[in-house]
């Protein structure tokens, strides 16, 4: 008998995944409509950010993860920012500087 509420909770969780998945597909359709209407690309990137946030927090359960996973992700984001922005800043610092053969 004690398993019944647990089973119900799991079934409810399954429905949540469908709803979030439907929402994400709807956001994809909005991205396409934005593109068809010629709206700025920044809107598409903003929607992509929102989709990623939803997928990571609900599908990957980041909304209720353990502290050690959050620390790992924070460290990963730090390294990601470094790997993205250090080469970019180096490339733009050298813009217009001729290469010496």
């Amino acid at each position, binding site marked *: 008998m004690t398993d019944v509420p647990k*089973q119900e909770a*799991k*079934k409810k*969780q*399954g429905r949540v*995944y*469908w709803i*979030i*998945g439907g929402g*994400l*597909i709807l956001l*994809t*359709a909005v*991205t*396409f409509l934005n*593109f068809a209407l010629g709206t700025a*690309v920044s809107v*598409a*990137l903003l*929607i*992509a950010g929102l*989709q*990623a946030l939803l*997928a*990571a927090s609900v*599908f*990957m359960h980041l909304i209720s993860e*353990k*502290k*050690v*996973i959050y620390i*790992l*992700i924070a*460290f*990963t984001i730090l*390294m*990601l920012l470094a*790997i*993205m*922005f250090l*080469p*970019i800043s180096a*490339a*733009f610092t050298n*813009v217009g500087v001729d290469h010496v053969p």
Partner: protein
Amino acid sequence: MDIEIPYSVEIREDTGVNNARFAMWLFLASEVMLFGALFSSYIILRASAASWPVQSEEMNVPVGTINTAILIFSSVTILQAWESLKLKNFGRFRLYLSATMLLAIIFISLKVGIEWIPDIKEGRFFSTNNFFALYFTMTGIHLLHLLAGVVVNAYHLGVGKKMWASDPERFISRIEVTGLYWHFVDLVWIFIFPTLYLM
């Protein structure tokens, strides 16, 4: 001789998670670095280029949109497969995992059949320009990740399913970490789509 692997299912006291999930997150962290470097390359090459093609004119945006929806749908089906196992419904698990694989195969077929092959036939390849070099590299690496996911899921449906009878908790844990990987591959595509198709 069977070797007992500790903490593959049970929670470690020091981390609060089992080793399988922690290891998958570590692996995903390394994957973030891989795709981060590719996106960084894209920004540098595009910003420093004298001219750049209008990507949305070069790409098949409707197919890209459909593929995005397909991957999101497959993320839901793999979650349903995992939930089915937790409800001890192996038949439903098989159905949802098969659907996940089918959706991935549809994605790959659309990508290769409707996008890559016509591109190559029209003479657009790695060497055409920096955009196509990045496009084929990024979508190619992403496709390889998806293929790897299909192989792992096929294993779970085939040889791997024996574990459901012998050690169901460990099998559920395996599907959970496979799901984490699958969602990550979906997440990467969510960023690839606007970056390569719409910008």
